[in-house]
């Protein structure tokens, strides 16, 4: 089984110029956690995930794991201020650029391995053919198609 057999081809993407606020609204509307980001020519420029918002709003001592639990502390006003300020910024600064991609001929095993070990923060794997995005593989696609494979 190859990437082309399991990928989703109906893809929703975000334009490179959109703001973080717009991207987050799209995440909420479609109930997706991550989107591929394309430039005007349709080339894949990166991946935006709601998980990428947190490194921009949480204090470094929490991000580094130096404080791994703060259940004893009240809310930090600064975090909300940063989130509000982030909404008007372009996603370009936040998205993961040069994400790992696969080709339609990549094996199922290789796709599953990349999703597990490399893409752990956004869990979608773009499928690229001739520099164009032709599909996406999410964990669900891997599981759903394994079930089909058995029958």
């Amino acid at each position, binding site marked *: 089984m190859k990437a082309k057999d399991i990928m989703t081809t109906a893809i929703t993407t975000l334009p490179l110029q959109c703001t973080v606020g717009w991207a987050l609204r799209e995440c909420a509307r479609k109930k997706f956690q991550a989107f591929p980001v394309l430039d005007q020519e349709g080339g894949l420029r990166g991946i935006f995930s709601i998980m990428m918002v947190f490194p921009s709003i949480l204090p*470094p001592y929490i991000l580094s794991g130096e404080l791994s639990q703060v259940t*004893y502390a009240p809310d930090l006003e600064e975090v909300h201020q940063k989130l509000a300020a982030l909404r008007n910024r372009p996603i370009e600064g936040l998205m993961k650029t040069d994400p790992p991609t696969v080709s339609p001929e990549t094996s199922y095993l290789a796709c599953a391995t990349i999703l597990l070990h490399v893409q752990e923060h956004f869990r979608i794997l773009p499928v690229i053919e001739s520099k164009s995005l032709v599909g996406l593989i999410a964990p669900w696609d891997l599981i759903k198609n394994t079930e089909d494979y058995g029958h």
Partner: protein
Amino acid sequence: MVVATAIFFITYAIVISEKINRAIIALMGAGLVIGLGVLTQEQAIAGIDFNTIGLLTGMMVLVGITQGSGVFQFLAVKAAKTANGHPLGILIMLSGITAILSALLDNVTTVLLIAPVTLLIAQELKINSYPFLFAEINASNTGGTATLIGDPPNIMIGSATGLTFNQFLVHLTPLAILAFMMTLIPLTILYRKKLVVLPDARSRLMEFNEWEAIKDWRLLKQSLSVFGLVLLGFFLHHTLQLEPATIALLGAALLLWLVTYGLNPEESAHKVHGFFSHVEWVTIFFFCGLFIIVAGIEHTGLLNTLAAWTIDATAGNFAITAMAILWVSALASAIVDNIPFVATMIPMVKDMLPVFQEAGVPPEQLQGLWWALAAGACLGGNGTLIGASANLVVAGIAQRNGISFRFVPFLIMAFPIMLLQIIISTLYIWWRYL
């Protein structure tokens, strides 16, 4: 003698330059000491002070397990709340808790646990965290001076001389408390007007619920019980005729056993592996290599000669020698790592003792030389940003959080404070031992 001395100086120069990891360079130096025939393998191994190594390792494992309970965050938050949200009070309380923990644990571990909570507290209070972090650096080195287990120089001195945990308490703890208190005076004057907190920020600090910091009550009870036993063991180690290293390692083994009790072998192996990863192996291997290099130059008689020169230079005057040890140790430790410095000074001071003994200096007074070395080496670390590992660790955490910790601004404030502490130590040693 030339070969050993050359290895010694080259190793020290590379350690100071920080171009190569200090554990690697110390082990290479040690390899050369053996390879070039300065020491046999047996002599080299005999040169390693396993009491120092064992005590460090045991305490690192104990702290590594205990920190999982959240007790250190609890203590930091509790300390800050005790000051009722008053910034100067918080500074004093956080320094106090840092000093106490540093006296009982390794300084770097202490600041790694306290500094992030401090950043959170300062951010809630909407004030600059620099004064707090600066005070904590000083407190960690000053607190570390107080006990045999507080700082590596003291561990080495205790192990090499047989001075007991209680003797360190009697002789160094009062000095450390005095130095800590006196340091608060300039800190208060400097920061009194800079630390202003609005009432709403102060009430937010009071919303902290320190009890929520305790993540694992069972672990907390187990760790505190074992810590209590280990401390009791330290108080009694002379009577029990056990080295502090034996007590620390036994404590570590007991706590490891308690926290893995009832687990299946796989889970247990995984947990134990995790706990041993808390041991700073770089420090441990650095010590091993260093002890061999120092044993090398000791073997050649170089340190003996240096000790004789020092006594000549001070005209055999005991008081001047003690003061020279204190001040040279402080100034050297402000610039270079105090661990290699003290490792070198210990055999030198040992060589000086018989001379003063023959001159009729009583044993209680002779001990003053060791207290001078300990105080100078530990407190000297307060002088510059590179004076102690804890300073660099705090500076690193601060820089990552956008708080500038630069060498010169730190020096301008820290060096005079260190001088104040060494003047206090001078008076203390003069009063008690000379």
